[in-house]
């Protein structure tokens, strides 16, 4: 019996734009280069198959440059067989033209899986694909695997895309895949896509995550899974291999008055080259006017070091102290203005937005007066 080794990946989302990111071009290039990364991993791990569990493309009908370059790069790695599964973003109904065009090219090592029928990966190993025919399927696409006829004594791999019941969805959509499909269908391994971070549902049911991260939902760089199964029924050896270039990080800063917010921010910053790091800082808790000003100044100073830096203070509330207002003025019109804004910021009768506006105005007044004092 021959062992089966393959690379499990998904959600490349080739062609995905990054509007709103200052260095969108770098992010797009890195996404395109993820195929080269997967090839390198497969070669290093002596794998002959790469299973892409859906969403190879970000849109059903990508630009010719997007899909042709990707297909060319995959086909040139002739020692590898690429198993391409239509996901929800490139489902069969909407992306039929794309998959037809790829199939029409006739590359022997590219296998577009448009039908739920068993495929022989190699002698002693078969693949049961569950292509998505629509963006939001109404039923479990892996259901057919239970009754799929397969030879005795072979390694059986399932390949599917979508959220598993009870584990949440990456995007809006119902959780449809049965988490115990491996047991129901006698699978040695069920390779899943849709979740952009790695997730282990069970030893035989796993999400590979995307090879190049694209959101703050999952910390760190993208990666793929190298799966090796010695024999039918044997426990799969699953190992994650990092492939991503950009490091996406989400930090949460919890502040209390008296804490040096700027220093805490600096201490929490991730290690590694910041130019390849995309960072979102979500600040929560309470702080004083002076600390808030100091935190904003620190963020302004640090932001240019990162590929992307985004600090959100929606969850931060000001704790206004007498000293903060004294810093504005101890008496007179300035003090009265500060008092009025502070009162508004804390007035429960006002809406959240009005309170936030008043708080921001107070912060701005404090900063103006502080600048003048400096």
């Amino acid at each position: 019996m021959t062992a089966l080794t393959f690379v499990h990946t998904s959600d490349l989302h080739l062609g995905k734009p990054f509007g709103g990111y200052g260095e969108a071009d770098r992010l797009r290039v890195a996404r395109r280069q993820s195929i080269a990364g997967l090839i390198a991993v497969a070669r290093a791990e002596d794998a002959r198959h790469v299973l892409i569990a859906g969403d190879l493309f970000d849109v059903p009908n990508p630009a010719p440059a997007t899909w042709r370059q990707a297909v060319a790069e995959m086909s040139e790695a002739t020692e590898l067989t690429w198993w391409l599964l239509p996901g929800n973003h490139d489902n069969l109904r909407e992306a039929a033209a794309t998959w037809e065009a790829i199939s029409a090219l006739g590359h022997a090592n590219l296998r577009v899986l448009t039908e739920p029928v068993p495929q022989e990966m190699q002698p002693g190993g078969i693949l049961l694909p569950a292509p998505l025919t629509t963006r939001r399927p109404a039923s479990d696409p892996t259901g057919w695997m239970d009754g799929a006829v397969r030879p005795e004594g072979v390694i059986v791999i399932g390949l599917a895309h979508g959220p598993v019941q009870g584990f949440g969805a990456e995007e809006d959509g119902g959780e449809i895949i049965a988490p115990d499909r491996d047991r129901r269908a006698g699978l040695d391994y069920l390779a899943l896509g849709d979740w952009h971070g790695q997730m282990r549902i069970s030893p035989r049911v796993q999400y590979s995550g995307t090879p190049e991260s694209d959101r703050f939902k999952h910390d760190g760089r993208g990666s793929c899974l190298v799966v090796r199964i010695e024999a039918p029924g044997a426990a799969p050896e699953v190992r994650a291999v990092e492939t991503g270039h950009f490091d996406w990080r989400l930090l949460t800063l919890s502040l209390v008055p008296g804490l040096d917010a700027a220093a805490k921010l600096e201490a929490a910053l991730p290690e590694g080259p910041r130019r390849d790091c995309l960072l979102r800082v979500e600040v929560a808790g309470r702080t004083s006017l002076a600390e808030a000003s100091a935190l904003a100044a620190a963020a302004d100073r640090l932001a240019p070091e990162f590929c992307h830096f985004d600090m959100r203070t929606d969850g931060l509330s000001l704790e206004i102290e007498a000293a903060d207002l004294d810093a504005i003025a101890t008496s007179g019109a300035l003090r009265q203005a500060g008092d009025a804004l502070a009162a508004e910021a804390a007035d429960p009768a006002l809406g959240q937005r009005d309170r936030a506006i008043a708080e921001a105005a107070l912060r701005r007044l404090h900063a103006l007066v502080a600048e003048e004092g400096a």
Partner: protein
Amino acid sequence: MRLRSITLDNVRRFTDPVRLGPIGDGITLVSQPNESGKSTLFDALQAVFFQRHTSWGKTGTAALQPYSGGPVTVECEVETEGAVWRLRKRWQQGSGGEAKVWRDGVLMHQGDAADQWVADLVQGEGGGPAGLLWVRQGRVSLSPTGTAKEKDAEQAGRRDLLTAISGAMDAVTGGERMDRALEVCRSELDALQTATGRPRTGGAWAMAEAEVADLAERVEALRTQADALHDDLRDRDRARAALALEEDPEDNAARKAALAEAEDALAEARRHQTALSELKLQAQVARQAASMAEGTALRNAALRREKAEAGVAAQNLAEAAEAAARALKSASMAQDAAADRLAVAEATAQSAQAAIQAIAQRQARADLRRRRAEMARRLAEAEAAEAERLLADSAARRGPTAEAAQAVEAAARTLETRRAAAEARAPRVTLRYDPGAPAASLDGKALEDGLPAPVGDGSRIDLPGLGRLSVDLGDAAGATAVQDAEAALRHALAAADVGDLDALRAAQRSQAEAVRRAEFAAQRRDLHAPDGLPGLRDALAALPEERTESEEPAAPDRARAEDALKAAESALDAARRDEAATRLARDAARDAATEAKAAATAARARLQRASAEAAAVEGRSPEADAEAAEMAVRAAEAAEERLAAHQRDAPDPQAAEVTVTRLRKAAEQADQRRIALRMRLVELDTRIDSRAEAGVEEALTEAETLLAASERRRDSLLREKDVLLRLRTALETAQSAARDRYFAPVAQELRPLLQDMWGDADILWSDETLLPRALVRRGSEEQVDLLSGGTQEQIALLVRLAFARLLARAGRHAPLILDDALVFTDDDRIARLFDALQRASADLQILVLTCRQRAFRDLGAAEVTLEPVAPD
């Protein structure tokens, strides 16, 4: 501080010392005419309080020096802090200035210290803010007036005033920190929006809005393209499925087979229809033949009856009857021959029709040729009939005319009548033979014994043995009349161009026969060419040419069959002509018998005609006629039966044609659908490729993310704008409230003064100048600068009074000095102002300098004048 006196020494026109005083509390009036030194007094007061003793400028103290030169000295007595102070300043060019301050006669300060004491007195007490409490002559409003230099000085004076009170005001309004914060806030807000709150062109907000709008428009356009792409993809799927259905081989084969079957059925139905037409024609011909045969039988029977009757009538005219019998026999023979020819022709026609029927059963293409041949045959028949009709018609027109014939017949009847009369009147001879006497003869005929025999003129009686007896009757027997009748008859015969009466009658029979032939020929022509010869020729010419007979398989010769039929019909026509001739003869005899029963000649003639006519059918029995007629009827019935049988079996060509048309149309529609679907697929492929090349969906996704980012930026700027607006509002509200508080005491002092002047009136203060900027009367706001000069000077005076009262209430008395401050005020208003001054003078010191002595008489103030100072 209260001013008690002022002394001028060597000040402009006052080269000798003059003194004004004592000056008490309340209002002090200095009412003097122009050029009496009031302004000099005002300037001197200003100099002593605001100019240092070392100051010497052309616009300042130097301007106080008289033409004669010398040091300028001004001395005042003031009361403050419960003591009387005397201060004196002296200015002169160079370093000869002096300043000294005494208290109760004791020198307290001198030099710079004295200047400082005065400055502290003015600043600290607020008693000398020039431009506010001191009103120079000609100064109407609170705003700077006069020369540029004076304006500058006035501006400086106001700055001095602001400086004098800025410490307290800063504490209230935030001072420069507030101003800078507001400036930054307003500047940042101004960069975002216009004064009306709209995005400022070129500003970040406007640019963000423009970017959002551009991206939204791009997203919309791309979304439209993407939707179109998706629609095209769906349409292509549907078109492909539809084309697959249209191109199903089994369906197409079934469609073709059904069409071929329907076309065969249609061809068969058309062939059947052609054969049916032929059978109809045959049946029609047979019916005509039967009718003719029946007619012949009837006519023959009539002839026979006539013969019997004529035989009875002309028993004695055997010769004539025999002649008629011979003629009849001859006609009968001719008729028999014609009947034979007709039979042959009918047989031949049947053969030809059988051949045509065989031809009709051939392919549809041959049908047309047969129709053409048939039409040609009919045309030939019709043309032959026409030719025959023309010949018969020509024959009918030859011979005697009807009038000539009638004339001959009349002449003949006259002759016969006259001959009969002559014969009736003729003498008769009766010979009584002696026994054994030989027989005598009259005109060759034996005279019978005892039987009278008529004799005519020239008759000869042979008497054997006796000789010949000639009879000469003269005209006794009417010979002349007979001769005249004979001459008339000859003349009529000559006119009719005939030799004798028989010839005439023969010619008439020939004409009648020719007319019948012409009618019969016309009937045949019309039978073959019911629409006329031209119509038949045109119809024949309109038929398309087909390949020749030689190209077709061998077939019976139709022309020969038609010729045979034509010959039979010609024979029949001849028999008919014979029958007509005997009928004419019989009619003539009948006429003669009627006219003159006694006319034996006529009776013989009738007998001859009847015999002749009867002889025509003598060789043919009635049974034969009946048999011939029955055969013809059976033939017609057989033709009808064949026709009926063919009609029963005939398929419906219209139904077959409808089926073929429907199937052909269905096939054409299927072709059109296939073509349309292929064209639609080409069109869709082109559009899909085009949009796919453009990467519409990626472009849309990118545009959407850019739009979302742009909207976030825009929202952030909107929030920033709202924050700045909120901050500006907070600052301005606080500052305004502070100013209100700052001006509140002044306003409170001013309000009763304003009410004295204008009733319900109020003053609005300028944030920038801290001066009144508008007068509010009856709720209407009026800019101070736009008010009349009188109102402006009234406001200026009242505001100064209010400030002075405010200072006084604060224990900081300051004299209010007015140098001709009311110039434009009318008498009514000036009285009210006097009241206001009196109201304010309770705790104020007011020094009024005026040249309007009469107007100020009613001020009710203590009046002082400048008086020379006696030398010590």
